[in-house]
């Protein structure tokens, strides 16, 4: 069966002040029906731009090549009306900061029902009834009152729950969640993650979960993609990615991440910083920061090659894979 979302060799170039800037290179990924897929990487690695591309929300002047198919539709060939049909009803999005993503001057009810009425052709009463159900589903107490409230009257966690309800309102099949817990308190994060997982099992919703936090990835997703400088550098089952990373970048990310009882001294920050768009080295983008770099790494960007079942790595050295295989 074809995956729900199938992205192949996607490349995006944005107009810059000094000529076009390539942001995404050769990105391929897929999400199956009802699957929870993680997309991880540092800020500026192209995760969010991938989401924008999949919703047709790129800034004017962006150039896109490759292919992106969603439920049989060629996304990249859509006109404005076609996009309007896909957005919300096919692919929906939850943004990083619910305070910024909810309109401050419209009631939650209005923001919940307006696209239902467009996509599902519901009248006001039916839409309101569904809105109450949705708010109940995302565990917002007293849904009838919440409908009449404005976003600023909610707490941060409640706002994100409302934003998720809004994203689900027009019955999308894929939800792209762009760092939905980053702007929230740690104590609230777990609740949002549990909510997304519950929604997936209850409604068969597919979720593409974008995060910079590998811990969130392991808690939630079954499969993951690691992005670096606009490329997918490693992909595989989340468990394997985290316990036996094959790409030096993945393992460096894991080493830089505080967890459990670690003290700061044992954390290993990655030296240097990711290349700015348009300034990537000719070879592997991670080569300048890589502890395992060898001369051949600097010649050409490595292809994403399969190394095991469901497992691909874009690295010619693959030091960790050998360790893991032994």
């Amino acid at each position, binding site marked *: 069966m074809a995956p729900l979302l199938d992205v192949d060799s996607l490349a995006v170039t944005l107009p810059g002040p000094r000529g076009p800037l390539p942001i995404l290179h050769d990105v391929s990924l897929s999400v199956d029906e009802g699957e929870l897929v993680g997309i991880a990487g540092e800020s500026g690695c192209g995760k969010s731009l991938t989401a924008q591309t999949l*919703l047709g*929300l790129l800034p004017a002047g962006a150039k896109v090549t490759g292919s992106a198919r969603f439920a049989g539709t060629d996304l990249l060939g859509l006109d*404005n009306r076609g*996009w*309007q*049909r*896909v*957005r*919300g*009803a096919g692919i*929906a*999005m939850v*943004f990083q*900061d619910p305070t*910024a*993503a*909810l*309109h*401050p*001057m*419209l009631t939650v009810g209005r923001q919940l029902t*307006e*696209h239902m009425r*467009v*996509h599902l052709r519901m009248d006001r009463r039916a839409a309101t009834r569904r809105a109450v159900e949705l708010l109940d589903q995302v565990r917002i107490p007293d849904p009838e009152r919440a409908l009449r409230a*404005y976003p*600023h009257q909610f707490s941060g966690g409640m706002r994100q729950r409302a*934003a998720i309800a*809004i*994203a689900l*309102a*027009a019955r999308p099949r894929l939800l792209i969640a762009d760092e939905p817990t980053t702007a929230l308190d740690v104590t609230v994060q777990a609740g949002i993650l549990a909510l997304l997982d519950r929604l997936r099992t209850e409604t068969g919703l597919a979720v593409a979960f974008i995060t910079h936090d590998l811990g969130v990835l392991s808690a939630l997703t079954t499969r993951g993609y690691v992005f670096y400088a606009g490329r997918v550098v490693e992909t595989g089952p989340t468990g394997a990615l985290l316990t036996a990373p094959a790409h030096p970048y993945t393992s460096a990310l894991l080493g830089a991440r505080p967890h459990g009882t670690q003290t700061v001294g044992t954390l290993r920050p990655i030296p240097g910083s990711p290349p700015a768009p348009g300034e990537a080295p000719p070879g592997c983008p991670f080569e300048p920061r890589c502890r395992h770099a060898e001369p051949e790494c600097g010649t050409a960007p490595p292809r994403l090659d399969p190394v095991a079942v469901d497992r691909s790595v874009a690295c010619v050295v693959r030091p960790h894979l050998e360790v893991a295989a032994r």
Partner: protein
Amino acid sequence: MTTVQNGEPGAVTTTAPRPRRAHPLLAFLAKRLAITAGLLLGVTVVTFGLVNVVPGDPVTANLSDQALNDPATVAAFREKWGLDQPLWQQYLHYLGNLLRGDLGISQQTGRSVLDDLVRYVPATLELAIPTMVLALVIGTGIGMLAAVRNGRATDQIVRVGALLGLSTPPFWLSLVVLYVFFYQLGLAPSGGRLSTAFSPPPTVTGMYTVDAALAGQWDVAWDAAQHLTLPVLVLTSLTVALLVRFVRSAMLEVLQQDYIRAAYAKGLPTRVVLRRHLLRAGLVPVVTVSGLAFASLLSGTVLVESIFGWPGVGQYAYRSATALDLPAILGVSLFVALVYTLVNLTVDLLYGLIDPRIRLS
């Protein structure tokens, strides 16, 4: 007044006192009323002082050369208008009358200043109201269009047009409009409020179009409306030019917001996003500027009123000032101060209507 000038709508909630029992809106209004009273008192002091400091003498400004040569006439004039008393006595006298609602008698018209204002203000209102309504609709529309088409040809044309409009002297535009529409095309009357063939309708609001319509005199209403077109056209284009720049920059800022992207991501049609999400959020700064523009229209537009022979507040102010007609100058100053405070109060209340985050309760 202060909240608008520092451009911080949030100040409404922070500066409003929080008494335990009174409704917050009432407390807010009471405070504003007190401020207004203080402001008006200040206006009388300043105007009184200024008029007496400027070189020039009401006696010479009002009496003919012949009368000036007669000491008895001059003395009688001084005594009649209280000019022989010390300044502070003149001021206290004026203030006492003011508290009884007496604005004094205009030396120019010989009528009470209040009667004069009642006569001139509606004429200005009749220009200001349609101008503001048209300018708001057109200015918001064009400004939004420019913001949505940021950087493209439409935007460039709008920006150049607004700049041209802002740098056009009102009197020049008035003359051009008169030349084209009255002299060349004969489409509109040259000036005044009504053709000589008609007499003014019975006064209710003082606005001829409204009063004529109320009296069922449709031919008079139509004639008055025709007389309105050219001055309203001039004032509207100038106000639109002012508004467009503010609307454009306000809307551009809103377009950057996540909630606009979120609205598109929900699959809403573009027109819904623009009308419901963009317009609402960009309205707060627009209301601020519109308030100031409206207040300035209400205070009279001397040049446009002069060219179109429109007997409004601007003309009255101009004639009183050149004649050093102190009671009239004070009356106009008080009126203008009152207009600005009322408009600012309305603007502050509108903020609360538009943005629930700064609602008073």
